[in-house]
């Protein structure tokens, strides 16, 4: 189904600086898809946030086509992100405008454009199976398994990564 670019381009719906390193195609192609996409990446979820909770919130912006939960590559359990696909781009834009930076399950969530779900992208890309950010972070986050993996494994001196 053709998704149309919104006529109202304001900062909330602009592309962020993130580009998927594993994207099969050129940077230009990726950006083209991002501008037409009606799929969103949702980040900073708790490991315990359910599909049902995500559905309730994101349905308030329009009909959700599907939700794909992000999973730990080995454990196959939720690891704190997901994809939300709408039928209409307009609805995805609404989520960027009204949900990004608000709370779901008590956590501020990040909503960003995604070029489109492809099988395999539901898995964390960190070495230990979760998201990369959980490998290196040094804070204690109860909803995301406590300390980052490198801290947990006693590997001090892990580089501090900016978000």
């Amino acid at each position, binding site marked *: 189904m053709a998704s149309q670019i919104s006529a109202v381009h304001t900062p909330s719906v602009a592309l962020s600086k993130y580009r998927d390193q594993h994207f099969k195609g050129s940077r230009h192609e990726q950006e083209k898809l991002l501008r037409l996409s009606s799929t969103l990446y949702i980040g900073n979820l708790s490991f315990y946030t359910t599909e049902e909770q995500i559905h309730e919130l994101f349905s308030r912006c329009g009909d959700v086509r599907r939700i*794909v939960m992000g999973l730990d590559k080995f454990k196959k359990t939720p690891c704190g992100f997901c994809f939300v696909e709408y039928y209409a781009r307009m609805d995805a834009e609404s989520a960027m405008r*009204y949900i990004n930076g608000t709370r779901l399950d008590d956590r501020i969530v990040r909503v960003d454009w995604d070029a489109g779900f492809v099988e395999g992208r539901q898995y964390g890309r960190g070495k230990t199976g979760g998201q990369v950010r959980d490998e290196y972070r040094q804070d204690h986050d109860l909803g995301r398994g406590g300390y980052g993996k490198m801290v947990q494994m006693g590997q001090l001196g892990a580089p501090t990564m900016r978000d």
Partner: protein
Amino acid sequence: MNRRRAYEDDGDFYGERNKKRRRVSENQEMEERLETLILRVGENSTSSLESNLEGLVSVLESDLGNFRSKILRILSECPIKMPEKCTIYSTMVGLMNAKNYNFGGEFVEYMVKTFKDSLKQCQWDAARYALRFLADLVNCHVISTNSLLQLLDSMVDAANEDNVPQVRRDWYVFAVLSTLPWVGRELYEKKESALENLLVRIEVFLNKRTKKHHNALRVWSVDAPHPQEEYLDCLWAQIRKLRQDNWTEKHIPRPYLAFDSVLCEALQHNIPVIHPPPHQDSFEYPMPWVVYRMFDYTDCPPGPILPGAHSIERFLIEEHLHSIIETHRWERKDCAIHLLYLSYKEKIPLEYCIVEVIFAELFHMPTPRYLEICYGSILIELCKQQPSKMPQVLAQATEILFMRIDSMNTSCFDRFVNWFSYHLSNFQFRWSWDDWDSCLLLENEHPRPKFIQEVLLKCLRFSYHDRFKEMMPEGYAKLIPKPPMPHYKYSMEGAASLPGTATAHKLVVAIRQKCNAEDVLNELNDLPILGDSSETEMTETTFNPLKIDVFVQTLLNLGSKSFSHTFAAISKFHTVFKSLAETEEAQICILHNMFELWVDHQQMMVVIVDKLLKVQIVECSAVATWVFSKEMVGEFTKMYLWEILHLTIKKMNQHVTKLSREMNEAKDKLARTAESSSSESEDEASTNPQRRRKNADGSGEKPTEEQVERMEEKLEAAYVEQKRLFLIIFQRFIMILSEHLVKCDTDGRDYDTDWYRWTIGRLQQVFMMHHEQVQKYSSTLEGLLFTSDLDPHILDVFHQFTALRA
């Protein structure tokens, strides 16, 4: 925290375009500078507004030679796009007219054309702001009072035409009234009797108009403590008060007063006689509204006083706030900033005005202008930016709304539930529940406990069941929803005595071993058709309620882990569903079995019904019939059931809209290619690939007449289905409401029970939520269902609905 590498910000398409190096002519740069200067005038500056205006005017003067048409265009657009800056632009035009009479004349002509065009294009807000600007130009000695009065009189003439919709006539009077705060004083000083005549004419008009629509638009059914005034009534009362005060108006900034000595020397122009474009059937006019009020000055803490309900200031402030929301609805941070930094914020209890206006939009009937979550997120942003005041005002507003919930209409009740649960989910569900515990003494169907119950059900969707123990005081136990677990009877106590248990267990094993649809059907074949054997011989359908029971409950229970699991299960055994659900009766049976399993997980039922409709296992009409079925009587006043009905109606509406759009696109293409093929040679058409147009289905060829015909047929069939759906729903409503009214009459009971109010409220909600689609069938509904012999309580709801567009 993450390893996403920061790349240069070359990603934003629009940014790219701006950053591309390109050759700009000096002219183009100049034009853009001029535009910016004009757009930005009056905004943050170290120098005074007067000197800014003087400076800009002399710049424009000198540039008139090269940029005349651009300047004309921008100066006429700005007061429409930024109506709150109307007086700034009228002052500019006034100063330019004082120096250059010809420019003034040209501008007036241009502005008149702009006004007329907006009337022709049904751009009602633009037209109103244009009219207001023309009126303000009288204050700046650009336009004569006589010719303005003539224009206003011809607007009132339009309001007095016969055989045109009332909404049109109302708009013309509304437009005239909304210019008077700007120009009333000037007209009073110079042409008092003509102004009086105008007002008398308007008063006569207002006394004659019907306001049947009023009740449909009210948020609360009672007028205490604040009346829900019809919008024209309210504005008229405000203008009357202004007139009583000799048109002294202090709220609107008037920069032209500082330039009076210059402006009064200017020669004025006359507006040519304008005839409003006559009504056409295709014209759509704004619908009426009520002025939403929830606060008066007693609600506000000591400080600046909230202007009274009939003060013109209240009108001006509210209009301004609504216009800020309209302009900044795409960026909630900007919206909050603009709302909080009004130039006159020190003079009013700002947070109260803002909160009142936002709830006005949220509760607007028939439907809010924007997404409900837009308002919710703006309120959250406001709390973030004004943490010392906004949260308290919002809490106070919530209290007020809860106290008055007994008389709130059902559509607004739903929106209040949705908003409050969403808001709580952003603030750890913290609320002073104890303050409301008197509601626990009321019947569960009473709006107050019902509100809390529905809020908790929504909060459950946002969180999880155990959360309630922390959240709620003990007394609220009876309102807390049950844990959202499935009830699979085939593995519960007593399962042994059920007829389907053995098959159910076999099915579970088979499905876990990854069997296919055929295997499932084979297992189900073991099940007998229960009931009267003589009946079963007569029916030829494969409708076997027991098969449906065992299959649906078993499968959905196996997929109960999450929505995705359920959807995967439905998808995998889609063909089984299809073969079992050939009739409407069978489809209703599927829905009923879903309900038996998932009675305690409302959200799950909503998404399952949505899915079943989407993959066409059940039809919209089956869902509608199921909602009104005997089995669902106990659920009838629960919000989720109406969530289901409305999503069903929406699906039907979307289906119709899609087919209609596709057909129109195809028709257009057919017409265009017919035109172009007659004007171009065959050779040209075949060698020029850009001439190829895409069909609605994506094929590269132009549509054939046959294809368009088939589309028309499909659309016709869809209309029939849609009409049938509405007829089913309205007919059921009429039946159950009539039954109730008759029964109460014969039993000598009061009909006005909680159930009655909820039900009549749901009937009204169907009209309001889907008014655009329903109104297509108004005459059918009137002829078939809403006939004059119907109980007036029911008939009234229909009449209020039709009055919205009368």
